[in-house]
């Protein structure tokens, strides 16, 4: 029965990994921009929630009401003010500029908050679990996070396929040049895209910080986990990212069951195996 629990636990981990990955996927899918600072933005969201929580006394999830608009605005400004200028220079500028932003965020958080590890406190829900016959136990919080991931992906699906904005996103992703010829203001659209990406980044940041310790240097590993989920699932497929996250989570859970220190490594190994054996991922979809 332990293996069933391990499997369930790993699958539910896929939820938070999918949430990590959404922001990364959106900015790559629409702007062809891999945001190296993505993980640090997740961690930044957690710190913003911490500050808001300390100021208002609200619990972390309620703080999202403030954190989400703040991060949306930050994403919009970042793209409009800085990242839009990197899009025409080839491979190096977006990569190095987002790398620079990553270093600035990490060290800014270090100077501002110190190197202490922190956690957001949500209360009893963190440890509650549902018990099923046969010794099966499912954590309430991981289930909640998985549910949020499903909602997030579902809402993105609606956005992309049922709205004018989503239509514009898909057009720009196909052919930015022609989209502009049809009247789409690409620069503004990219800014909105990063803003939306940051909405999910903020949600991911708060949800992860409730269960996991974080500090200013916690960003890079989050970027790597998001990246692994996207690659395993296949570039360009939103629901594939969820499956990718689940495969990653299950690999980690299996590794952890063998020995706790093996958890992250097991995920990396699964990622490398998929990369070597099936480089386009499990459900590849992008035209490049």
């Amino acid at each position, binding site marked *: 029965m332990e293996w069933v629990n391990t499997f369930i636990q790993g699958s539910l981990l896929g939820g938070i990994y999918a949430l990590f990955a959404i922001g990364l996927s959106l900015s790559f899918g629409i702007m062809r921009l891999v945001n190296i600072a993505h993980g640090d933005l997740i961690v930044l969201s957690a710190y913003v929630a911490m500050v808001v929580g300390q100021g208002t006394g609200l619990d972390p999830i309620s703080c999202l009401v403030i954190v989400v608009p703040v991060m949306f605005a930050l994403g919009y400004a970042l793209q409009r003010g800085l990242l839009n200028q990197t899009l025409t220079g080839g491979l190096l500028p977006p990569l190095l500029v987002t790398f620079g932003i990553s270093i600035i965020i990490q060290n800014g958080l270090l100077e501002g908050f110190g190197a202490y590890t922190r956690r957001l406190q949500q209360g009893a829900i963190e440890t509650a679990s549902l018990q099923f016959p046969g010794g099966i136990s499912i954590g309430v919080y991981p289930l909640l996070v998985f549910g949020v991931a499903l909602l997030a992906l579902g809402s993105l699906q609606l956005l992309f396929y049922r709205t004018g904005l989503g239509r*514009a996103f*898909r057009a720009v992703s196909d052919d930015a040049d*022609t989209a502009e*010829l049809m*009247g789409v203001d690409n620069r503004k659209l990219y800014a909105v895209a990063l803003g939306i990406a940051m909405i999910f980044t903020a949600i991911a940041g708060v949800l992860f910080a409730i269960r996991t310790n974080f500090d200013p240097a916690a960003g890079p590993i989050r970027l790597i986990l998001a990246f692994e989920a996207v690659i395993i699932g296949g570039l360009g497929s939103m629901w594939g990212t969820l499956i990718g996250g689940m495969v990653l989570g299950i690999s980690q859970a299996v590794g952890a069951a063998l020995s706790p220190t093996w958890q992250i490594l097991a995920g990396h190994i699964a990622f490398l195996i998929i990369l070597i054996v099936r480089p386009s991922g499990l459900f590849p979809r992008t035209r490049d």
Partner: protein
Amino acid sequence: MTLLQTHNLSAFYGDFQALFEINVTVDEGETVAIIGANGAGKTTFLRAVAGALETAPDMVMFEGRSIGHHTAHEIVRLGIAMAPEGRRLFPSLSVEENLLLGGYSKRPGPWNLKRVYDLFPRLRELRHLPATDLSGGQQQMTTVGRALMSNPRLLLCDELSLGLAPVVIRDIYDCLGKITAEGTTVVLVEQDINRALDASVRFYCFQEGRLALTAPTKGFDRAAIGAAYFGI
């Protein structure tokens, strides 16, 4: 009245000069053709007018105002739309979604989804299919329809006949006739000289980025065009 006028329009791709001081005038309601061999600069000219290529502000005047410094999407809002060379439909979008995307700028005017389907009835049946699943001729109709959805005063058509069978080309040009009958001004770039001249009242012949010849099409001796076309 003069709708579009270019003044010594020069355009560059990096260090390479593609257009050399082109002067073109298009009056409202006219259909003007631009002909020339491959590489003559015809598409470059349309892209420069449409704002996809950087030019000095006064080089392109539309409705009496300089537009050379505007971006492509701003120019759509001003009333110029393009049916690009090679169709350039969005593969991730259905036929209808491509048309709706054409209306992104929400310019007021007579054209809407229903009227485009009236003009191209076949598209109504195919509207939920991915646009790139259609035949060449149907894709071309979608491209023109997409441009019409922005209610342009000036429609730029780049190589409508490219890769299409003669019978299909004839259908497309019949539809073009209906569009111009509504008063839309059209500049069309064509490799098929006869088609181009049959559909237009005036023509410009480009040769290696320069204007080689311009004249009214009525009664013009087609043989004389050859010299200008090939730069002999």
